[in-house]
């Protein structure tokens, strides 16, 4: 475990929440291992598939696959940031769809070089705004993230139908720069891939080098400790959801470019794909574990699995079964592997949390009981960590 930029030297053997949280942060380099493993897996599959399936080797296929993966990756990176903070965002699909229609329509009225710039800004802005709605519900109204984003999913997808007003955005209304974005080539590589790469680099920097990133990891690893450490949990929650929403908005622009015609059903169901990508990439739904790279690799692997299955002429009906099983397999492998690596830390963390919880159990004033509750594991599915 080398090269942590934020290590606190002299971590004591104490079992106080602050130390255990800090130690959780120190173990993040562990994740590099899981990403390496994932990368190796992807390369292996690529090699085997390229040898066995002639259709896999074509430039067209690679181009399609990378572009599809890039679209998922952008939104998955945003979702990952939220998941790292032990929240979840189910409304990304609807945010994407709203952005695809609204921003896609708006840029049609802007001519000249200002178009792309304003387009991207509007997409990010609209997405961030919608994400802030989630942040508001989770932070101020104190709803569990899964319920809050379930509610916003309903509201935003209803808004999609209202704004499209019985019609849709036609590909002929989309300005040329956006319509051609998907098929273009910047230095030989498609714009979507460039955009995904930029998002990856920017988000990795954000998560590793800034206070925001450190705080999110702390928040996800151990929320009580995080507030004891003086982390502004409320602000970070808002920022995480806004960030996720912004990237979903950007994904909306890409959607318009990819499909041309945008109607009220745009983005429907996409949130599950994105979460699946994050999960396959090794991002833990318990929070505190994973990186933007995990999301990208997960998107790549997910797309590759789909691609290979399609080319193997496996009945399209079997694809869904195999993809679902792949998700379960991935989750199991990561959990078992990371557990084995983290065992010593875990025991101390567990003891610390148990003592805190036991103390509150005997005498719970209303506020503290809630504080425990709101940080008691991810919205659903808490286990040994919670």
């Amino acid at each position, binding site marked *: 475990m080398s090269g942590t930029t934020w290590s606190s030297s002299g971590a004591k053997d104490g079992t106080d929440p602050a130390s255990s949280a800090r130690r959780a942060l120190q173990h993040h380099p562990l994740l590099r291992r899981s990403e390496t493993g994932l990368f190796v897996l992807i390369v292996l599959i690529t090699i085997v598939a390229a040898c066995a399936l002639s*259709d896999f080797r*074509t430039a*067209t*296929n690679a*181009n*399609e696959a990378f572009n599809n993966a890039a679209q998922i990756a952008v939104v998955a990176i945003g979702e990952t940031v939220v998941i790292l903070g032990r929240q979840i965002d189910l409304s990304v699909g609807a945010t994407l769809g709203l952005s695809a229609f609204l921003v896609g329509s708006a840029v049609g009225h802007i001519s000249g070089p200002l178009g792309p710039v304003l387009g991207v800004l509007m997409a990010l802005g609209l997405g961030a705004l919608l994400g802030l709605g989630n942040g508001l519900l989770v932070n101020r109204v104190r709803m569990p993230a899964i319920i809050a984003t379930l509610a916003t999913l309903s509201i935003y*997808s*209803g808004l*999609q*139908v209202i704004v*499209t007003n*019985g*019609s*849709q955005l*036609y*590909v*002929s209304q989309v300005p040329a720069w956006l*319509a051609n974005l*998907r*098929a273009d080539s910047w230095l030989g590589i498609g714009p979507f891939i460039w955009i995904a790469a930029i998002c990856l680099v920017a988000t990795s920097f954000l998560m590793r080098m800034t206070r925001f990133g450190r705080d999110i990891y702390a928040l996800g690893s151990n929320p009580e400790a995080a507030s004891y450490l003086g982390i502004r949990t409320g602000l970070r929650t808002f920022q995480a959801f806004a960030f996720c929403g912004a990237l979903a908005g950007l994904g909306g622009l890409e959607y318009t470019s*990819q*499909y*041309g*015609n945008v*109607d*009220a*059903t*745009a983005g*429907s169901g996409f949130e599950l794909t994105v979460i699946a990508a994050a999960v396959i990439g090794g991002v833990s739904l318990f929070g505190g574990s994973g990186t933007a790279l995990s999301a990208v690799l997960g998107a790549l692997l997910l797309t590759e699995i*789909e691609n290979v299955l*399609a*080319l193997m*002429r496996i009945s*399209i009906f079997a694809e*869904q079964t195999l993809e679902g099983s792949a998700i379960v397999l991935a989750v199991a492998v990561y959990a078992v592997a990371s557990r084995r690596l983290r065992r010593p830390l875990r025991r101390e963390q567990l003891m610390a949390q148990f003592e805190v919880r036991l103390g509150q159990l005997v005498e719970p004033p209303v506020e503290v009981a809630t504080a425990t509750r709101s940080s008691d594991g991810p919205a659903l599915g808490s286990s040994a960590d919670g």
Partner: protein
Amino acid sequence: MRFQRTKRATIAALALSAGLGIALPAIGASTASAASKVTLFMLPKFTGIPPFTQADQGAATQSMQYGYTLKYGGPTTASATDQVNFINDAVAAGDKGIFISADNPAAVTPALQRAEAHGVKVVSFDSDVLPAGRTVYIQGTSAVSIAMTELNMLGSQIGYSGSFVILSAQATDTNQVQWNSLVKADLSLPKYKNMKLVTIVNPPDDSAASATKYMQSILQEYPTIKGVIAPTTVAVAAAAQVLQQQKLCSKYVLTGLGDPSQMKTYVTSGCVKQFALWNFSTEGTVAMCAMHAVLTGTVSGKTGQSFTCGSRGKFVVAAGGVVTAGPAEVFSKANLQDFTF
């Protein structure tokens, strides 16, 4: 103590609701009695896509001739359960007739039968239900002409020789099943004997994302085909987008049933030379005329019955209670600008 208070509150609430439950129907009945106007309800597969909006407009315009009020509504995504909710609501609201384009033909039929038993008339359009659930079905244009038109559009561009794939919709979509089987049957005709249908691909839903995915797969799995027929507006637009992005427009011929507004870009760029459709607005108008005929007893779904529809003339009910609204329209660069739908 708290329990007592809560218990008392609950009993009070229950008593109140019981009382209301008795009193309210009486109140409700009196306030609703003023509805002597005939109201009808149009239920598309899902709201938010232009073809259904156009059908609604066509029907609404015609309804003014008869003095009916037409309401329009539906689920936001394809859902049989939600459609049944709307069917139930329409009946409960006292609507005399329901127009429906079904998400799942069999699943909504029991609810429609209940509606019919309650005295509500049902006319289906676009996507038929099981015959037991409706009086007549209005199809945009005849299935025979659709199949023939599709084959002609494709054939004329590939010299009537070569293999092709059909990129369809859900496997239970009654229209698709019918058109595709007619295409298969037509292939035995001498004109098309050198054309071969390799396979019919059925995505699990009608979304652009699925159609795109399956079009990409088709191009990879069957690289030697000459063309693709996509008989749904969603699929043909998505397929055109794929061809355009992969710069394969000159290699494959794409045709099918498309919406002119959606397809304009592809026709202009030359990616798709021809496609066909029919007028959804006309379909809505004829459906309204049919409903009027059913409501007044002129038509009960038997073969040979007929009704008139204003300036559009006389319509005859064919076998199975099917009425054809009009001819198919073939679109190409030459005539595209004449159509604004």
